[in-house]
């Protein structure tokens, strides 16, 4: 036993010495992907490593999204940052503000002479991770958007047409009331990520400002604006429907998504990334549709924005290593690879060409659920209000907003007062963020 192990170790050591692998430049990639998504990451790294001999990408799982981001920040402070750090979309402003800590992707690509055309990327995707001058700072990796999932069996039971999902908010409320009457009395409809769906996406989808300065994209001196009459009306509707569980609150994150797959909530607004979970666990016929909107709002629906994460390149590394990172990004942008990644994993394709290729293949005829978020993202040319959003301290901002929404839903505060407080408290946090990053 021991002997065989020893022999194996010797063989491994010999292989290390003799193979040219020892001369390879290592690229550290810290990520937050678990389960099937982790396999996607590992497979991508393996394929890249097999495609050339100069560089070796080493992916490392670092825990949840906040854990991974904190690990990257701590490693940077200790002078030991990875080359590539996967950061969730709400960390975007924090990363962008850390000018000394990151290497902008557009710079990286031009210095390494890799072909790179920002126009090749879907505008809604590229815009989210670019400066107001159109310089792409991070590399989009796994992108999703939010959609409305619904239970077709429940719709039939309530006498609703399962092939015509409600398109507007008033229609959703009507459908939920019918579903409630048909036995879904604990939950007519619900929403995961309460602030992402009902404040952030809601604002973009209705082409109303979430905050000034193009939702923070044009500057850190942005001020929140989501206490408008439209926002108040929406929250007020939710508050009223919560009383008899026609709407039922499911918490701040996506932990309430299980209420859809278990059949408790027949309508659930959440990420398009819910796809894998629904496919695996829902024991009923299901579908998804675009997010609802208020039909009296001019220009609605506009376009939605991204969730998910992008890859940030950390600063302070030698040029030789950056060449490897740039090569890896070119590898990731390849049309066929993007198309396959999209159809295998359910992530959105990030380039126009990949989207066009999948569309031409007829894939969406059988799998319309994967196209819904793309249609939302590309619904119209983005406006100042819908290019994306970029607010500092976003993780905590969402908590503060959720607290106020919870207070309104619990009947402790009127909707207007809750949103006013959410805006005021959020602005204080934005000013503090502005202060720490602009010095």
């Amino acid at each position: 036993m021991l002997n065989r192990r020893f022999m194996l170790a010797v063989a491994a050591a010999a292989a290390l010495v003799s193979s040219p692998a020892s001369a390879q430049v290592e690229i550290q990639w810290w990520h937050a992907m678990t389960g099937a998504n982790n396999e996607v990451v590992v497979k991508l790294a393996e394929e890249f490593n097999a495609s050339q001999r100069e560089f070796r990408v080493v992916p490392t799982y670092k825990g949840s999204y906040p854990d991974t981001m904190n690990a990257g920040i701590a490693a940077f402070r200790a002078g030991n940052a990875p080359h590539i750090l996967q950061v969730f979309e709400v960390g975007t402003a924090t990363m962008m503000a850390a000018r000394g800590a990151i290497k902008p992707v557009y710079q990286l690509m031009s210095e390494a002479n890799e072909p790179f055309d920002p126009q090749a990327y879907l505008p809604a995707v590229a815009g989210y991770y670019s400066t107001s001058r159109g310089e792409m700072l991070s590399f989009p990796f796994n992108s999703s958007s939010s959609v409305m999932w619904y239970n077709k069996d429940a719709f039939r039971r309530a006498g609703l047409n399962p092939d015509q999902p409600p398109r507007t908010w008033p229609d959703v409320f009507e459908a939920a009331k019918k579903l409630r009457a048909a036995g879904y009395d604990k939950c007519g409809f619900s929403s995961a990520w309460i602030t992402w769906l009902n404040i952030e996406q809601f604002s973009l989808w209705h082409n109303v400002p979430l905050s000034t300065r193009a939702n923070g994209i044009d500057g850190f001196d942005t001020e929140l604006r989501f206490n408008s009459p439209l926002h108040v009306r929406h929250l007020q509707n939710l508050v009223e429907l919560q009383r008899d569980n026609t709407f039922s609150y499911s918490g701040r994150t996506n932990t309430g998504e299980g209420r859809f797959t278990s059949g408790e909530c027949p309508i659930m607004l959440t990420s398009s990334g819910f796809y894998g979970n629904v496919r695996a666990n829902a024991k009923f016929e299901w579908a998804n549709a675009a997010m609802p909107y208020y039909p009296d709002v001019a220009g609605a629906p506009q376009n939605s924005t991204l969730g998910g994460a992008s890859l940030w390149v950390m600063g302070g590394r030698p040029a030789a290593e950056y060449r490897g990172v740039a090569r890896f990004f070119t590898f990731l942008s390849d049309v066929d690879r993007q198309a396959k990644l999209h159809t295998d994993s359910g992530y959105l394709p990030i380039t126009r060409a990949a989207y066009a290729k999948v569309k031409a293949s007829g894939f969406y005829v059988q799998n319309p659920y994967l196209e819904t978020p793309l249609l939302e993202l590309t619904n119209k040319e983005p406006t100042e209000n819908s290019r994306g959003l970029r607010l500092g301290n976003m993780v905590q901002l969402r908590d503060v907003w959720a607290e106020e929404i919870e207070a309104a839903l619990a009947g402790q505060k009127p909707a207007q007062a809750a949103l006013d407080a959410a805006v005021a408290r959020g602005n204080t946090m934005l000013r503090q963020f502005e202060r720490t990053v602009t010095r």
Partner: protein
Amino acid sequence: MEKRVVFDGKLLPYMLLLPQLAVTLVFFYWPAGQAVWQSFLIQDAFGLSTEFVWLENYSDLLSKPEYYKSMVTTAIFSALVACLSLSLSLFLAIQADKQIRGTGAYKAFLMWPYAVAPAIAGVLWLFMFQPSLGLIAQALRSLGFDWNPLLNGNHAMTLVVMAATWKQISYNFLFFLAGLQSIPKSVIEAAAIDGAGPMRRFWTIIFPLLSPTTFFLLVVNIVYVFFDTFGIIDATTSGGPAKATETLVYKVYSDGRLGGDLGGSAAQSVILMIMVIGLTAIQFRYVERKVQY
């Protein structure tokens, strides 16, 4: 003749103390000093820009009504958890101290929860009381009680108090049981012969003789609810709904780790440290006088 050993030289005693001193300095005083230093700074998450701001973090903090709300929440939470866990575990220890069949198994089961990590304890309770999945929550709902810790602050508080109490009962139980077993049986029997009933025997003999244990546990329990409960809160309610379960230590965690506000978070932990030092000092100064050793 008595023979005394005299160590001369000053070096040896210090050498012998050194490991303990080093551990205390490195693991307690150094981080505490770092926290105090950090609390005077405003810094971005990456540490790229640092500004020394004297006491601004403190004045910011003390001007926010949320901070006082969090103090009140902490006071309610710690009073509930300390009272409940002490009284329940004393009750259980008295029962386990009786001559009954299967005491051994009974004791072992009562000690188990102490081996469970706080976050896991939180998740266990969440599974029972989560409105749509939890068994007990579904039972409550079918009885017509609208149990909803996602929106009702009192329900959420009940949930974290239950989880935090349950987690601490084993520890208290162990100490109370040991304390009870060290009370001489003869004293209790003498009182019984003199005609004192069980209640009277408890309040006049057992409780006073148990007071050193109770006092020690009170101090330990207060420290526990102040510092060790954030795992439970994070796993069950994340401080919600609407800050109903946001205690001071959870706020330190969420502001520092989720919010990246290291200065403000450090200021909070310094205040928390002072509060616990103060509380412990008060306990030793005033409560200890009533303790009969």
